């Protein structure tokens, strides 16, 4: 077996010459473990076909054998698992996967193997498994759904297997701006790009293929009398030479967003086994374009008849692509089944490659002689149809029904062409509805989004001559509107015949596939119609028509048309489902770009971060910041030991903590005091210079927004702090108040959060320590009492600030220096504080001490509490207006049984209380009916040697001394606690005034 799989297949399908492939660069890869060969310039699909492999996949529901249908991103069948390990990519389209050396791919959705798939038995059950069958069964017994039915369905569904491991590759974002964005590089796109670029406009051309040229790479055509590929090469060369032109191959425009913003995905390294060093795998572009030219071409439609999914049945245009571009023959006995002139060109194009077409079956009764002349060597059936494609996992023959009766024709490839759908996806992303064009029996774009022009085949203009004219005109117009002076275009070609007659299905059997990938058949559409799913949107959702990875590019139109026919409505009346981004599937990693892992969001670092790292600090994510949580020392093996030590050090000696994360705002101006009065519930205009005050702000709805301190440094100069979490919101709120509500106030403010390194220095020895740092500044109580604030020199000549604020309840200061000195100040504090037994403390100790002192924090200011709830009722000035004053007087906010801020201690000192516990009266069941409040914050108090808590309790302040049960069922803790005042240490404040 091994031998067989490594033996090259010898590329039996490869033509001896031709093709846009580099025969000098042979490549090897593996498909299902078997060696395959190809050349640079191949896709996996062209290589598979060249190697003679036609069965490449199993279908979604019935596990039917499937081959390659198309040569583009609309491929519904040939989906493979590409690469291996953590790079495995399920559902990769072989038709757009560039072949590279070492490529590894596997077929998917079968058991045990691609060739012998036992699940193909589903096909026998297909009458029972029609559209929406699962809505009608699996209901009994109810408990079986999660345990039996759903796991079965889930396992059967889905196509490929995800890697299931972290994606090792990098993704990048990038932004681009241009005058004209050209989407698609076929003749229409190139003509547009040339017209605009020659005039000097900034042009970006995005092409999803790895090679530019569109259908010109695949069809044998002439432009300006030269072969299409030559014209293309010259056009590309000219564009490349222009400085303001950017050509992006391998780049799919996947979405159109507001304001002329386009999303595009550039695949930088998908054509190699692993990305080159320093390169991302893919780059997501946001392109802002003044104008866009949508030249995305058209997508050929299949024909609907029994067995139309048989490997070997391919779009006629794909046969041409494989032959001309890849020098690959898809069969030796080729037939065509078409309803339009263009399909006939396949015969002529294949003939040029030496492949004879044996039969052409056209559903139309009449075919123009110059069209049928394109297949002069073939048997011609008009007014005929292929009624069945026969064979097993490869096409053997077709059954043709014509006036002459039914006959079976041997064929190993059948090219089908049901006409062309303009590729108008992107023209509709902004909600424009397509309009029906009877001439080409297809929808064409309605009003495209502002700034977009749709040209060429995408616009329903199918002939090459028209494509070139329209493209050039659009490029011309766009450039002109950008202020350039373009010249008239020069490229010309014939208007080849492209007549088409609508033809939607031969039959509606359960073997006539409409949506190949989701196995939606004609029978499903008929059933849906019968059951009342008569809106195209209902049809889609009930049958899953158009919901697979190709998003209905191949089959939707037939489904909708069939529904319309069944209901006796016109197609435009029945309508079409909505086109939504992305145009083709886009990797989630690409959207996330560089924002993943540790860089999902920036980690804001405090000025002393580096120093703290050196101390072996444990950090904690607090919102955007990374903060020191605690500073474990030798032999401290659990966090609580450390935190206890840190707290006790502060309470007995001195400690310090980086509090630079607080939001800081410098506010200046003659009306600063007046402005503050309106922001805070309490008054600041009366604040003396050199003093600080605690302040509370409400939202306009009367609930507490934030708290902090504000110091007056000079008559018209204030410095305020906000909580770390709310800094941005408060700042924006203040800007709103100033700019929108009270523009008359002469006040200026900026954020100074990052300017200052600020440390809290707390403990009985704080003054002694600081004296060393700020000498000769007088720190005595008389000169610098509690709530004093000043500007001063630190460590000799560093301009700093000192505030006598205490969060810990100790004698404490907050000292600030410009942030660049923060690291040095931390080191200095350690050094100078050594004599006093200093220890740094982190957010845990900070939190513990604030709980000991009963200060409110983020858990209490949770957006539902009022100033009164939190005990700030008396701070609310009755003498002035302030934000939130009026609404704070709503009846429910004044009710006396509201849950208010109190403290809790365990009745049994050994008990641990937990935050998040609910409070119920003792002795009653812990049920909602008895729920009276909640514990919001807890800490172990090293001073008291037991756990303490803060919380919100109905009528709490009236119940001091009473007991409640703190019920924490999710952690199975039920603890009796005593209600107390929310201050556990030094309630008189002697320490902080020391």
């Amino acid at each position, binding site marked *: 077996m091994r031998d067989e799989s490594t033996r090259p297949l010898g590329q039996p399908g490869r033509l001896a010459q031709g093709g846009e492939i580099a025969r000098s660069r042979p490549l090897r890869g593996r498909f299902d473990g078997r060696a395959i060969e190809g050349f640079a310039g191949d896709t996996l699909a062209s290589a598979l076909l060249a190697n003679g492999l036609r069965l490449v996949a199993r279908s979604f529901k019935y596990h039917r054998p499937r081959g390659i249908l198309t040569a583009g991103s609309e491929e519904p069948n040939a989906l493979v698992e590409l690469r291996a390990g953590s790079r495995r990519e399920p559902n990769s389209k072989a038709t757009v996967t560039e072949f590279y050396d070492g490529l590894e791919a596997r077929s998917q959705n079968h058991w045990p193997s691609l060739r012998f798939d036992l699940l193909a038995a589903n096909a026998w059950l297909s009458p029972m498994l029609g559209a929406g069958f699962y809505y009608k069964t699996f209901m009994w017994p109810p408990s079986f759904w999660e345990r039996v039915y759903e796991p079965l369905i889930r396992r059967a569904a889905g196509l490929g297997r995800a890697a299931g491991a972290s994606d090792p590759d990098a993704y990048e974002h990038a932004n681009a701006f241009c005058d004209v964005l050209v989407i698609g590089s076929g003749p229409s796109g190139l003509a547009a790009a040339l017209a605009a670029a020659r005039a000097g406009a900034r042009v970006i051309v995005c092409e999803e293929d790895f090679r530019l040229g569109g259908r010109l790479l695949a069809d044998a055509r002439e432009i300006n009398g030269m072969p299409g590929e030559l014209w293309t090469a010259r056009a590309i060369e000219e564009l490349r030479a222009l400085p303001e032109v950017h050509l992006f191959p391998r780049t799919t425009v996947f979405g159109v*967003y*507001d*304001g*002329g*913003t386009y999303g595009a995905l550039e695949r930088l390294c998908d054509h190699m086994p692993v990305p080159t060093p320093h390169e991302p795998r893919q780059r997501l572009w*946001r392109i*802002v374009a003044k104008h866009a030219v949508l030249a995305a071409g058209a997508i050929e439609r299949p024909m609907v008849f029994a067995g139309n999914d048989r490997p070997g049945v391919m779009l006629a245009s794909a046969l041409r692509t494989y032959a001309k571009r890849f020098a690959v023959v898809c069969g030796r006995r080729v037939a065509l089944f078409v309803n339009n002139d263009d399909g006939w060109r396949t015969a002529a194009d294949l003939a040029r490659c030496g492949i004879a077409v044996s039969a052409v079956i056209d559903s139309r009764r009449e075919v123009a002689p110059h069209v049928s002349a394109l297949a002069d060597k073939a048997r011609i059936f008009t007014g005929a149809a292929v009624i069945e494609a026969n064979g097993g996992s490869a096409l053997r023959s077709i059954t043709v029904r014509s006036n002459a009766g039914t006959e079976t024709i041997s064929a190993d490839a059948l090219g089908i062409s049901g006409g062309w759908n303009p590729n108008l996806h992107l023209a509709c992303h*902004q*909600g424009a509805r397509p309009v029906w064009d009877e001439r080409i029996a297809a929808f064409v774009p309605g009003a495209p989004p*502002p700034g977009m022009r749709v040209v060429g085949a995408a616009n329903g203009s199918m002939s090459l001559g028209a494509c070139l004219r329209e493209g050039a005109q659009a490029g011309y117009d766009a450039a002109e509107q950008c202020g350039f002076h373009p010249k008239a275009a020069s490229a010309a070609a014939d208007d080849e015949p492209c007549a088409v007659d609508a033809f939607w299905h031969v039959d509606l059997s359960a073997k006539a596939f409409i949506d190949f990938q989701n196995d939606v058949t004609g029978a499903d559409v008929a059933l849906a119609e019968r059951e009342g799913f008569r809106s195209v949107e209902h049809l889609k959702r009930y049958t899953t028509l158009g919901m697979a990875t190709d998003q209905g590019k191949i089959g939707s139109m037939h489904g909708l048309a069939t529904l319309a026919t069944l209901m006796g409505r016109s197609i435009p009346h029945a309508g079409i489902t909505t086109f939504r981004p992305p145009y083709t599937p886009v990797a989630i990693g690409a959207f996330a770009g560089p924002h993943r892992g540790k860089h999902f969001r920036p980690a804001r670092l405090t000025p002393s971060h580096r120093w703290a790292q050196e101390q072996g600090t444990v950090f904690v994510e607090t919102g955007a910041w990374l903060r020191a949580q605690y500073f474990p020392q030798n032999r401290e093996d659990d966090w609580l030991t450390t935190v206890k030590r840190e707290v006790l050090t502060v309470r007995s000696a001195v400690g310090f903590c980086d509090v630079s994360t607080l939001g800081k705002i410098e506010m200046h101006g003659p009306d600063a005091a007046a402005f503050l009065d309106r922001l805070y519930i309490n008054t600041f205009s009366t604040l003396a210079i050199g003093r600080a005050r605690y302040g509370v702000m409400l939202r*306009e*709805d009367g609930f507490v927004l934030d708290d902090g301190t504000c110091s007056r440094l000079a008559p018209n100069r204030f410095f305020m702090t906000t909580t770390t979490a709310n800094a*941005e919101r408060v700042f*924006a709120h203040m*800007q*709103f108040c100033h*700019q*929108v*509500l009270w*523009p008359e106030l002469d006040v200026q403010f900026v954020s100074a959060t990052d300017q200052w390194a600020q440390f809290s220095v707390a403990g009985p020895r704080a003054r002694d320590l600081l004296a060393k740092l700020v000498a000769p500044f007088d720190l005595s109580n008389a000169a610098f009492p509690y709530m004093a604030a000043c500007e001063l020199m630190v460590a000799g000549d560093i301009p700093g600030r000192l505030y006598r604020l205490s969060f810990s309840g100790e004698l404490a200061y907050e000292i600030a220096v410009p942030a660049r000195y923060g690291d040095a100040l931390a080191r200095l504090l350690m050094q100078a504080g050594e004599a006093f037994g200093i220890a740094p403390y982190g957010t845990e100790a900070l939190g513990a001490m604030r709980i000991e002192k009963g200060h409110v924090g983020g858990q209490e200011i949770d957006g539902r509490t009022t100033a009164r709830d939190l005990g700030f009722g008396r701070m609310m000035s009755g003498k002035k*207006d302030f934000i939130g*004053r*009026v*609404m704070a*007087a*709503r009846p429910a906010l004044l009710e006396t049984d509201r849950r208010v801020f109190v403290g809790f201690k365990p009745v049994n000192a050994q008990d641990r209380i937990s935050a998040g516990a609910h409070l119920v009266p003792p002795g009653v069941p812990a049920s909602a009916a008895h729920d009276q409040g909640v514990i919001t914050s807890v800490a172990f108090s090293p001073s008291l040697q037991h756990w303490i808590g803060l919380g919100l309790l109905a009528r709490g302040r009236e119940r001091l001394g009473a007991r409640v049960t703190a019920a924490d069922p999710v952690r199975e803790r039920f603890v009796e606690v005593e209600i107390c005042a929310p201050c556990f240490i030094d309630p008189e404040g002697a320490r902080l005034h020391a």
Partner: protein
Amino acid sequence: MRIACPHCGARDMREFTYLGDATVARPDPSAPGALDRFTDYVYFRDNPAGAHREFWYHAFGCQAWLVVTRDTRTHDILSVESRAAK
């Protein structure tokens, strides 16, 4: 969506934050019936399908509060004014 900030130029919407209805005005807090009016001001909104005047804050840019008139059906921006003092 791109908003032409009168100060900074046209910028992607991700530079901005949104506050909604700009047709409301903060009532006089001392006028009679202030509570009702504030209820209206704080909670009740125009929410038209069509042109809508709304507050946007140029958070990552110049920090101006803008009044943007925008069609809520198409996201087309019809006008932008700034409330920041020049």
